[in-house]
């Protein structure tokens, strides 16, 4: 410790023995809690050989589940993105009464259980719900069909893009956009040439996280989908079905696709964070709509 006067005093917890023990214990837990669950998916998926794995993936039901998952994401994610941008533009570029309330409402899905969301949708579009009888009369099928899966996915991911954009655009202020419009640029031009380049990484970040959640959503979708094999099973629901059919290997084969998606999402996340995305998080909706004092620098 007193090896030399110029040495910076070692910080708390830097004693070599303590350090080694803490590091070992925590990393052991990381291996148990995080790495093992990931590893076991791969091990189980290939436990009956590559051929069986291939056969599971190529099975029409699995292929259909993948297709349904991709289609759901192709609808839900872009719609959600447009909403996120619109919400961020309205909330950060204008002052209007009820702005804070709007912020809170946008974040509600983040704290509501997906099961509650699914149940709630039944009471809107289900037969015992608000519009159910009218929808049945018009022969429009929302529940137990693709539209239901899409809107339930939209509910659970509603805040994903908006919560990345709002704090960033809040911090960037309105000066650039005001300069652009005062020079005669139209609103669209201002958005595409001034705003978008400044928010593109944060936007992409939100889109990546949103997509990951849409493709993996289970609770809300399992309530509204009706779980019809080969018809309304998304990939996570298909995994459950295979698992309860005592086809664990098949379930893990299907799960390995979503695990790959999760890994790709993490890689994209790290890459985007290097570009500065995800840094300015507005940790709370009620914490205020003012730029955060600690991180307000554009």
């Amino acid at each position: 410790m007193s090896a030399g006067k110029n040495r910076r005093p070692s910080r708390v917890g830097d004693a070599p023995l303590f350090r080694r023990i803490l590091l070992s214990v925590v990393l052991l837990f990381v291996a148990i809690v995080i790495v093992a669950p990931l590893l076991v998916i791969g091990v189980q998926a290939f436990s009956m050989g590559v051929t069986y794995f291939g056969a599971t993936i190529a099975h029409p039901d699995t292929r259909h589940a993948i297709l349904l998952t991709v289609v759901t994401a192709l609808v839900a994610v872009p719609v959600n993105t447009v909403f996120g941008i619109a919400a961020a533009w309205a909330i950060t570029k204008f002052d209007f009464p009820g702005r804070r309330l709007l912020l809170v409402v946008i974040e509600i899905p983040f704290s509501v259980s997906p099961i509650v969301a699914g149940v709630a949708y039944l009471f809107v579009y289900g037969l015992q719900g608000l519009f159910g009888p009218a929808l049945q009369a018009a022969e429009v099928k929302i529940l137990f069909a693709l539209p239901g899966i899409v809107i339930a996915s939209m509910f659970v991911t509603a805040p994903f893009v908006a919560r990345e954009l709002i704090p960033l655009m809040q911090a960037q202020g309105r000066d650039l956009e005001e300069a652009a419009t005062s020079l005669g640029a139209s609103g669209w031009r201002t958005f595409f040439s001034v705003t978008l380049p400044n928010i593109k990484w944060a936007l992409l970040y939100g889109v990546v996280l949103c997509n990951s959640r849409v493709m993996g959503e289970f609770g809300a979708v399992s309530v509204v989908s009706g779980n019809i094999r080969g018809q309304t099973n998304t990939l996570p629901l298909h995994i459950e079905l295979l698992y309860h059919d005592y086809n664990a290997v098949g379930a893990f084969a299907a799960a390995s696709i979503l695990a790959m998606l999760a890994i790709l999402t993490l890689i994209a996340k790290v890459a985007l964070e290097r570009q500065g995305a995800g840094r300015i998080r507005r940790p709370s909706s009620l914490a205020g709509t003012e730029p955060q004092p600690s991180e307000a620098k554009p």
Partner: protein
Amino acid sequence: MKRRVLPGLPLSLGITLVYVAIIVVLPLAALVFKAASLGPEDYWRIVSSDRAVASYRITVLCAFAATLFNLVFGLALAWILVRYRFPGRRIVDALVDLPFALPTAVAGISLTTLFAANGWFGAPLSAIGIKVAYTPLGIMIAMAFTSLPFVVRTVQPVLEELDPALEEAGQTLGAGDLSIFVRVILPLLTPALLAGVSLSFARSLGEFGAIIFIAGNQPMETEITALLAFIRLEEYDYPASAAIASVMLVTAFVMLALTNLMQARALRYTARA
């Protein structure tokens, strides 16, 4: 001086309000309406039934235990990520978010396989008489897994910003490491810890996908509230499902208010530091 007003308010606000109204407000209002139409007596009978109360107890107790685990483990994990340099640190840092990226159903079957009596961890544990899968312990593990990143990610930035001078001051005054940690560092981390803990707890209360595989789902014993709402639905007992879901919704709102309060405090603290 009046600020120049940017274009696009009607369009952007219009899209926002329509979307929020249709996607978020309408279904929740419909749920509340359905639950309210039960009348106070029926409502109370459903939400205070033995099976429902047992499910609240299991959910809350397991969420509490999972959150406690995440408090300790999350703090330790954030600590090694910020304070120590070791090979693979960046990979561990990225892996912290895995529970958010991995679909809950995938996490569910994966954890069940690991902790089943013949699994990698289940086998040695059952050899010493600890059953995890299909017990409340399994529910706790699934909850701990899915809410793991919260504490780490709220504590990490605060730990990074911590001024080394504070620790040096403690050392100059002759305090030992433990004393400095407890009296100087921990109080500074407390707001962030509380914020992380409340997010983690709220998430655990509402978790469904990861839990139903590992829980065993025995009524009164290993049945969480979210599952009970789901089961009532499958039994076509819609009023009961609405009532139980409304209890979860109210709890979620209370937790939302609480987490916002905690986070606002954490934020004020960071801003001042």
